[in-house]
Structure formats: C-alpha cells, structure tokens
C-alpha cells in the first residue's frame, strides 16, 4: 500500500450526518478518544441521502471500508431515515457482491449526537476486521 506514508492501516471512509453523528465524531476528538488516523469523514445532511455509487466509488478508488454513521431515530428529517439507510446499505452490498467486493467492507451503525464512544469502538473494530490478512 501507499509507500512512504505513515498511515498504513486500512483506510475507512465515514459518511457522517451534519447534525447528529458528525457532532458525535467532533466530540470524540474533544474527549481525546483516539482512533486510527486512517479514518476520514465526509458529512452529508442525512444518512439516507448517500448514493450507492458514492460508496462504490470510494471502495474502487482505494478505500478499504466505508462506514455509515447513520442518524438512527434522532434524524431531524424523519423517522424513516434508519429504514431508508438500511435499504441503501442492502442495495449497495448487492452491487458489491456483483463486483466481487466483500460486502462486509460496508458497515452501518446508528451514531447519536453523543455516541462518541460507540463511534470509536465501531471504527476500531472495523479497522481490525479490515486488517485481517484475508481482507
């Protein structure tokens, strides 16, 4: 992998949501809860706005995993959010299988606005999973 770079762990792209999970990720920083620096975040308004093609693009361009930090029931845009995000994940994983990508490289979990610790736990265990030689 990227020679000459210090961060050699698996690269994870996190889709966070501007009002709910991104503040939680900010707070993880505030509380100095450390997690691997190979985790990158792109905030979107709502997790049910993520297009499968974005996820596929990220995986194809070199990300080892994609993590959707979903709003869960706290979503300010409506309670259908979790369900809709679930559908997106399902659809994308189907597409991944078709392309021969391990569907476990896409993960989703609900991260509430104070779920800093769960977030860190999720990305750490995801990193561990992606670091296994078989992946």
């Amino acid at each position, binding site marked *: 992998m990227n020679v000459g770079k210090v961060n050699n762990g698996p690269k994870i792209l996190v889709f966070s949501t501007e009002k709910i999970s991104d503040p939680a990720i900010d707070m993880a920083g505030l509380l100095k809860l450390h997690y691997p620096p190979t985790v990158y975040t792109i905030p979107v*308004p709502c997790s049910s706005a993520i297009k499968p093609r974005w996820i596929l693009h990220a995986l194809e361009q070199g990300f080892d995993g994609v993590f959707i930090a979903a709003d869960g029931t706290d979503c300010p845009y409506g309670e259908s959010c979790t369900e809709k995000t679930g559908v997106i994940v399902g659809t994308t994983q189907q597409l991944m299988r078709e392309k021969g990508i391990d569907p476990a490289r896409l993960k989703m979990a609900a991260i509430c606005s104070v779920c800093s610790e769960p977030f860190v736990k999720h990305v750490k265990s995801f990193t561990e999973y992606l670091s296994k030689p078989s992946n």
Partner: protein
Amino acid sequence: MNKKIGVYICHCGGNISDYVDVEKVRQSVEKDEGVFLSKTTMFACADSNQQEMVDDIKAQDLDGIVVASCSPKLHLVTFRAVAERAGLNKYNYVHANIREQVSWAHSDNKPGATEKAIQIVKSAIAKARNAETLEPVKVESVKAVAVIGAGVAGMRAAIELAEAGSEVFLVEREFFVGGRVSQWDELCITPETGKELVTRLYDEVMKHKHVTLFTGAELSEQTGSVGNFSLKVKITPRHFKLQCAEGSLQKAIEVCPVEVPDEFNFNITTRKAIYHNYPSEYPQLPAIDMKNCTRCGECEKVCSSIDFSQKEEAINLKVGSILLATGFDPYEPKQGEFGYGEIDDVVTLPQFKRIVHYCKDKLTYKGKEVKNIAYIYCVGSRQVDGENKYCSRYCCTSNIHTAITVKKKYKNIHNFHFNRGIRTYGKAEVWYEESSRLGDIYLQSFEHDPPVVERREGQTFVKIKDLLTSNKELEVAADLVVLVTGMVPRKDNSIGSLLKIPKGRDKFFNEIHMKLRPVETVIDGVTIAGASQGPKNIMESMNSALAAATKSFSLVASGELALEPTVAKVDRAACTWCGKCAEACPFNAIDMVGGNGNSVAHVNSSVCKGCGMCLPVCPENALELIGLSDVDMENMIDALIPTA
C-alpha cells in the same frame, strides 16, 4: 474555468499545531491544482486575520477559499461572512475540520494526524475547485412564537416576546400555570414565595393582548421548519364553564368520591378528581381530572358550573419559532435507596417542602413530632454507580435554605447535613454560613462510601464515616430523613422526540454550543430555556429564558429568513417520473410537472430541507443536492486517497 483558491491553515493557538505539522500541510497543498496562495495563521478567526483574508481575496482576485481549522459548527458562518465581505459568494468557501477530527482525535500520533490533515485539506480544495455561486433561499417568517411550558421560565419568555412585538402562544400541558415554582414557599434568593412569583408573572402575561395561553394543552404534531412551523395542539377540557362559587366548589370537592395521590404535593396527600392545587391558583378555574373521574355526577348536583359535555379540541398554530421551557422532574429515588419507600421516615426534599408548608407551629410527619432531621445530599446526582454523573446545581443551596427556614419556624430543630462537599456557589455561600452558625451540623462522606439509613429498635438512624473527623463512624438518630434529590429531565420526552431535539450526556436538551450559541438547538428555529436544558436555579432560568426569547424573536422579527440553498435539483433530461422521489420526500417538496409522457419531477425549493433522501431512490440518478453533487463527492473521495 481555473479557479484561484486561497488556503489558510490555522494553528488554533496550538490546538492544531501541537499535533499537526501545519507548515508541512501547507507545503503539501500549495502545489495543488487551483491553489493560488497558501498560508498558516495563529488564529484564523481573529479579526486581524479575517481582515487579511478579505484583503487577499480582493487583492489577488481569489474565487475560492479554504480554511482548515476547527469544526464547521463553530466557524463556518464566520468565514462565510469573511467571503461575503470580500465580495466573494459565500458558497465558494469550504471548511476543513482539522481540529476536532484530526489534531484532537489523533493527539497520540503527530505524523498520522499531519497526513490525515493533508488529505482533508486536499479534499476541501477539491470541493472548492468545483464550488458554485449560490444564493440563499428567502422564506417568509411568521411573526409568532410558540412557548411550550408555562412555568416561570416560559411565562417570562412569553412576556418578553410579547413586549418585543411578537405574537405568542403559551402552551401548558397542566391545567394550571407556574410549574414547579408554584409548589415552593419562600424562594431562596428573595423572601418572595413561589406562588407570589407565579402570580406576578401570570398577571403580567394576562396584561399582554398578544399572548394567548392554552392550558391542558399538548403539542401533538409539528410540521414545517424555521419561520414557518405548523403546530397542532390538543386541548383537554377542564369541564368547568365558569369559576364556581367558593362554597359550591368546596361542596363539589367534598362530594367527589374519587381520591387519588396529589402530585402537586408529591403524593404525600390525596386530592379529589375535581381539584385545584391551591385556592388562588391560575387560571382561577378548577378542573376535573377525567382520567380518574368515575362520572358519578355527584358534583354536578352541587355546582352548576360543571359541564361534562366539553370535548377535546385540536387547534392549529402557525409560528416562526418554538421556545421550549418544559422544565424538569425531581429525581425519584429507587425503592430502598437510602430507605426510600421502605422506611416511613424517609422523604424527598420536594415532599419535605410540602410537609413544611402544611405544618404550622409544630413540625410533624405521620403524626409524629420531628426534631432531628437528617438530610442526605446528592441523591440522584453525582452518582458513582448510577447514570446521573452530573451535579444538579441547585440542591445544596435549596436544601440549606429549607433547613434554615425549618430551624427558624419551629422550636428545637436539629439539622444534620450528610453531604458530599457543599456546593453553595457564589453568593449562596452566605446561606451555608448562616446555617452553620445556627448550629446545623455538616457531615461529609467519601465518594464511594455513602451514608447508611437503617431502622432498629423503633428508631431511624443515619450512619456515616465522616471525612471531616478523620473517617470516624458517626451516627444520628433522626426523626425524619430528607433525601436531597436532584433534577432529572422530564420523564415524558414526547416534545423532545416530536421536535427531534438532541440530548446531551446528561439527557437534558442540548444547546449547540455552550458559549457561542447557548440557547439554540441544532433544529433551526427551536430554542431552549430553563431547566429543560439542565439544572438551574430560578434566576439562571430567567436569564436563559430572556436570552432564548431574544434569539427566538430575532428569527421572526423581520418577517423574512434566508435559508441554505442546499436543496435537491432534478436533471430533467434524465428524469422519467417514476414518483419514487416524491414518495421518499418527508416534506412533500417534490411533485410532478409536465404531462403527456413528458412528466418530470419538480422540487419546491422553499419546502425542500435538503436532506437528500430522494437522491438514492432515483433509478435514473436524476437527482442531486446542490453543493453536494456526484462530481463534488467523487472529487472529495479521490482527494482523500494519498497519491503516494
């Protein structure tokens, strides 16, 4: 078009530069496509640096700006304003978060953090390269505010809003106003009683013709958004036409066969299904509690004002902003917590205040005279094992004040305070001193070694290992044990969930930023006040109510609001109208236009909130969010991948 982008990397006075090599970041991005100038700065947000940016934009004719600093929640608006001052469209500004999500999150790994910062800045530059000039969406704002909760904070906010010139709907769930404060006698800062304060505020509220008060009213539905909320309020009837004459009301209460625990007195007494909490209560119209009424009809016979034909009503309100002042609940100790519910002599502080209210010359409880009172502090607060880690702020002062009152009101009272370090902050320290001088005894326990309440030989004892007496075991024979209970969020969080107000770690409503935006929530247009936000005393609640009123008013004052232009956009050429997007939209912002086989979707941009739920459902990929297009997203993702 080749953009000229300016990149500023902030040291944040060490917050970033201690863990990220900012100079290296600058060097790594200065050659990126479009980057015309790149600088590091001690405080990007300082006035002089802002001015420097403005000068740069003007002098160098920049058409894109990237600032890599703290979270956009803090300063996105600040730098957008900088862009605007320099004559640059504010949507050509892109914010990179390299503090909360880089320097702080990876303070254990400077090279790693530096590398991540480089990629994040590159990604932001990629976005800036493609950024479009956009205009905010203007919407009308209704010059009315709904204040939820008519406790002292809600009433005070309502008065302020009305005086400022807004229409106010004051919505109270209970049949009576005043909330918790009406339950207290003498308040601690001034000699005024809770009832007097409530009366004073109520009179003031009723003087304003622009305030409409609804009691027995509950918010049941909410649609719309800032500037234009539609609220549905369900109003439970009181089943009284008019105030009945004092005599016949008294009779009606007497004949009512139902007896239920009186929540106003924290269940130490009972009340009938016809009730008012105290004689001069506002509104001065009793109510029938239909949950417990057996409809026996006895009361109708003695009081003509009773009207069982009243029906539940639902009314619709249009407001520009919502102010929440829904208050708190006192902590309810668990069964057996310091003997609560198991030993008769154990009550909570709110119950104790009601007991004191009812005892005139002699303090008695359950028929027994009370002389030695043990107060156990931090019940439900600062829990070592439990969930409530926070300090409830008001209880030390409130309890000490109560103890002083009791000592002065009755003879031969001995107060014993079993505390964990008294927190009478500020001027409240004088109460602590006064109580000490009056002979109150303070005993302090270790964090992990709380006092123990036990009953033996017909007497209740409180035992403690006293930190102030070198850990000596001491014991008090108490006639009454008062659990100084803290504040917890309202059990019933229906309003919180209805409006989607996020909660903090303490489960109270959370503000956006404690210092920058202390009364606003992430839900635009909804402000919070009083103890719904966290434990506060009355004065602090008033301050927050007034501050929230100012904020809410500023949203409705001008009658117009500018909203983010980040809304969905339809590629008409690609759309084949299948209707899936309209189905997915939670705001009904999408409808069909055209016809005859040429139907396409259309987004009503003043209704669209820009959530993007419609995006992934489109089989033709004909929808995009303005400012977050496929190209934007792919550029950003590509830039996050290091290119060796």
